[in-house]
């Protein structure tokens, strides 16, 4: 039993490597520095466990009986305690402690006291249960706001400031970097970098209420050129609808409740309590990266957000007919 688990576990670990949200699947220097140390300590500790379990099992063969016992002044065994209990663990633990310190020093996760040296490129603000993202790079007219999907240039370290508007959250993209909490009144900083272009998923990692489970996260790393195109696109106001359906949809959006909470830049919709929708059509997911962004899900989300994310702060909105809903979704989808 015990041995089987010990033998099996590295295999299980390996099988986990390939998954999208695994710390072994390191795709950025942060995670890539942690993974080997983690790997070493896990393997070593599996070996230690195995040795210890064997040490526990061997003496079972030496049986005694309840009728007799050793003399009470019998000594011995001190060496075990001194060597196994004190010296070996002391050496092993000191080694790992130092390795941890060295790693930490080279590791760009910071508290507010270090903010002086860090000028954030991106400000991420946690909300129950979505992410507000401010791009702070460059002069004021180069800044913009988006939500839930964070784009970064690949191969380039980006500094993020992490805050929260309401309760505690934590920013965690396991394949890129360790996590750090987002605590109201306590801004934290993190340097994040992806080696290659690609999509990196993550998750809010501090319990923040009923929809903590659906507070997912997507970081998209792009080549320098693609990233530049993306920022250009993001700087544009919401796309002006051209097709009649989309024009009708815009009317639904603006006259309905949507605009009280959501913003679409360039339109009168200037709500600030919900994700910015200026470029919602370009995002891969909705509901804080929890559901695919396609027609079916969008229609369902608008009318039944509460079925997808029970308790989330967007109500079910059912006061329009089927045509209006289709128009609305068409409008949202062309907001690219």
């Amino acid at each position, binding site marked *: 039993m015990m041995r089987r688990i010990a033998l099996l576990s590295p295999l299980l670990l390996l099988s986990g490597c390939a998954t999208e949200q695994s710390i072994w699947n390191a795709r950025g220097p942060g995670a890539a520095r942690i993974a080997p140390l983690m790997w070493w300590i896990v393997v070593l500790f599996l070996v230690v466990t195995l040795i210890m379990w064997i040490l526990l099992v061997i003496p079972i063969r030496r049986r*005694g009986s309840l*009728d*007799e*016992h*050793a*003399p*009470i*002044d019998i000594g011995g065994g001190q060496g075990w305690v001194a060597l196994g209990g004190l010296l070996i663990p002391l050496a092993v633990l000191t080694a790992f402690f130092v390795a941890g310190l060295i790693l930490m020093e080279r590791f760009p996760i910071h508290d507010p006291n270090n903010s002086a040296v860090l000028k954030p490129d991106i400000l991420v603000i946690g909300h129950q249960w979505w992410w507000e993202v401010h791009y702070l790079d460059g002069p004021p007219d180069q800044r913009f706001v988006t939500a839930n999907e964070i784009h970064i240039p690949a191969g380039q370290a980006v500094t993020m400031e992490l805050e929260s508007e309401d309760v505690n959250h934590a920013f965690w993209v396991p394949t890129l970097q360790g996590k750090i909490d987002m605590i109201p*009144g306590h801004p934290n900083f993190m340097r994040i970098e992806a080696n290659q272009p690609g999509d990196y998923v993550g998750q809010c990692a501090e319990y923040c209420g009923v929809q903590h489970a659906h507070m997912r996260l997507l970081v998209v790393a792009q080549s320098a050129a693609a990233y530049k195109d993306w920022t250009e696109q993001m700087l544009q106001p919401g796309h002006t609808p051209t097709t009649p359906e989309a024009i009708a949809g815009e009317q639904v959006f603006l006259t309905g409740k949507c605009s009280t909470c959501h913003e679409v830049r360039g339109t009168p919709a200037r709500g600030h309590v919900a994700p910015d929708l200026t470029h919602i059509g370009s995002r891969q997911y909705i509901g804080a990266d929890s559901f695919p962004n396609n027609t079916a899900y969008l229609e369902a989300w608008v009318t039944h957000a509460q079925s997808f994310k029970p308790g989330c702060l967007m109500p079910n909105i059912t006061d329009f007919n089927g045509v209006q809903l289709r128009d609305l979704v068409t409008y949202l989808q062309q907001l690219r």
Partner: protein
Amino acid sequence: MMAAAAPVQATRLPRQPGTRYPLDKSRGEWAMWLTIATEGSLFVCLFASYFYLANNKNRWAIDHPPKLHYALIMLAVLLSSSFVLHWGESQLKKQRYVAARVGLGITILMGLGFLALSAFEYMEHWKDLTPDSNSYGSIFYTIVSFHAAHVIMGLLMLSYTLTLPRYSPTSRSPYRPYHVAGLYWHFVDIVWVFVVAFLYVMPNVRVYGF
């Protein structure tokens, strides 16, 4: 082979009780010391929270440090009450029970005086700070009120001791109520020293210098 129950020289045989031992009278005192330890730890937590919140950069605005006059008078009252109580206890040891009772009575009166003073102090303080103005107000009033509650508990213990029928040596519990209640009262006094130092004197020193 292991020997079964090998004989072993007992290193030191315990003293055999020859005569009956006296009845134990110190259980209450021990328990009181432990109560004081845990209560002291509670106040340490409160003071730690006070300093932690004070560190909370630029949010902690004590515009007017608390005025000292009441706090210092209260300190004088409380400290002297401890001396009175101590005197009362020394009378008790000399078996002057009436004097002991008088000492206890005066201590209680002084404690009541302390509470009256703290009511005035509250009223004055309340004008520009309430518990819901900001975190400073919250922790300030919480510490002061926790202390006041301890004073009230101490007074209740002392009054209870005052109403006990007799102080002569007794084999009945509570064996040494005077002493035990006194311990608590001294503890409450010492806490006030820290309250005055941390909550009253230090902010004034910070703002006005020495």
